[in-house]
């Protein structure tokens, strides 16, 4: 969690820090719930072939719109596919979206924000005006525009979501950087001949990391909802992919008689985005600098 360039001797250090954070999270019921839902999500995605009771793509037109029970845990959809199995495989898509978006957004936001905050001057002005431009549009509208331009697909949806969610991270990282850019430990690094890049990577980013991780976690709920929204509009994952938003979109036509087509993926989206919010809140408490001494 602290410094990537750690020697093997320090491994137990951050491992025990991780254990302390986990222990802290499990102490509060809400963040424990968040953590549990996310653990279930990860396990479901990893073990999907063993958990799913049916092939998520297998159609059975003799067996459409079956209600829950009757051999299908959550019923079947308009093409007779097993909804439970589709949800299970959909977990993989959801995780892939979250993972890819975070992996792109975290580093970009950190680098842009830390550079703007540390270097200051015209660099700050340029980077922050670009950030402002991205922030000026509602993220769903901006993603819609990107996907419309790039063509609808899951990959493009991920790119579009990533493009719209780095600016708040950059803002946060810049604000954090401003609070300690004048600190003596930064001055000491300068006196040792560290280049600005080295100072940003080794001194500034580790300080911004906790709040960025918290923000990314809280952001995941939005990412999931945006992805589902794009899927719902037919601009994200394409059929027959069992993406939860796309499942709601197709199920909507049968909603009045067959509520389970919409309710099951809806509840899944709700639970997972709620879980990430609760976990983010818990992390905010766990990574509070005032708790640092206990670690």
């Amino acid at each position, binding site marked *: 969690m602290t410094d990537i360039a750690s020697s093997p001797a320090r491994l137990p250090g951050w491992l025990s820090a991780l254990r302390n954070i986990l222990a802290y999270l499990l102490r509060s019921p809400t963040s424990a719930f968040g953590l549990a839902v996310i653990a279930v999500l990860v396990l479901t995605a990893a073990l999907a072939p063993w958990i799913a009771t049916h092939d998520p793509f297998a159609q059975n037109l003799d067996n459409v719109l079956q209600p829950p029970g009757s051999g299908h845990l959550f019923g079947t959809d308009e093409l007779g596919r097993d909804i439970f199995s589709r949800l299970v495989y959909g977990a993989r898509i959801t995780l892939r979206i979250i993972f890819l978006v975070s992996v792109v957004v975290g580093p970009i936001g950190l680098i842009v924000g830390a550079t703007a905050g540390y270097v200051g001057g015209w660099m700050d002005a340029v980077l922050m005006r670009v950030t402002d431009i991205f922030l000026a549009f509602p993220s769903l509208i901006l993603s819609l525009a990107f996907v419309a331009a790039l063509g609808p697909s899951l990959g493009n949806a991920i790119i579009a979501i990533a493009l719209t969610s780095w600016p708040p991270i950059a803002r946060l990282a810049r604000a954090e950087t401003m609070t300690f850019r004048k600190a003596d430990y930064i001055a*000491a690094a300068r*006196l*040792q001949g560290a280049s600005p890049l080295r100072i940003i990577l080794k001194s500034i980013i580790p*300080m911004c990391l906790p709040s960025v991780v918290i923000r990314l976690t809280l952001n995941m709920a939005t990412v999931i909802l945006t992805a589902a929204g794009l899927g719902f509009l037919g601009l994200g994952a394409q059929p027959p992919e069992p993406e939860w938003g796309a499942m709601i979109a197709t199920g909507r036509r049968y909603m009045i008689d067959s509520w389970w087509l919409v309710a099951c993926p809806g509840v899944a989206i709700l639970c997972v985005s709620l879980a990430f919010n609760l976990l983010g809140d818990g992390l905010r408490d766990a990574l509070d600098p005032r708790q640092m001494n206990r670690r």
Partner: protein
Amino acid sequence: MTASLEIRDLSITFGEGPDAVKVLPSVSFSVAPGECFGLVGESGSGKSTVLRCVSLLTTIWSGEVKIDGRDLRELPLKQRCRLIQMVFQDPYGSLHPRQSVRTTLAEPLRIHGLDDHEGRMKRAMIEVGLPVGFLDRFPHQLSGGQRQRVAIARALILEPALLLLDEPTSALDVSVQAEILNLLARLREERGLTYVMVTHDLAVVDHMCDRFAVMLRGEITEILPREAIPGNQATHPYARELIGASLDYEGRA
């Protein structure tokens, strides 16, 4: 290794236009190789600013600073780092909170491409009187005095000739202050270092420095040898007052 320092007409103004504040109007003094030169004066008189100019943490000053006769601004960065280092006032703010002592000490070695990291770090720890096992500690696992020792080790690991000390003991417990001062005195003796030491405590000057300058509102009122303290041989009224107050205090204590 040792170096002389010569400062002539150092002046600096912060801000622009009507808000401009001339913090140092014109400061000149020189420090002989191996000397310990004190800077005393009340808070806000510009002592730290002098050190920040000499270390080029602040670059907007004008005037002339020479190290061993060479213009400070003309020294290449790496060479300058291996000539001048600084110890800051607050050891709670001068060590990176998320870096272990090992990382703190290894960074300068990596930047300058020096060999034998492990050996240099161990020797540095021993020299400042810390157990080698503390290399794997983080700042929050150290006391104030121990942190300041790490800060001194970090400053010395590049083997500089000139050490700038900005009130290195004022943030520490009284019991620890003497230990750190003794450590600094010993290191100077062993390595022939040149010190410029900011303090507001004349007892520290008496203990450590060969000569000292009394600063008032950014100007040096008088430069005195240490021997001038006991009999208060200062001529400038402010310097007399400062030394007098300190002698009174010690008389009572």
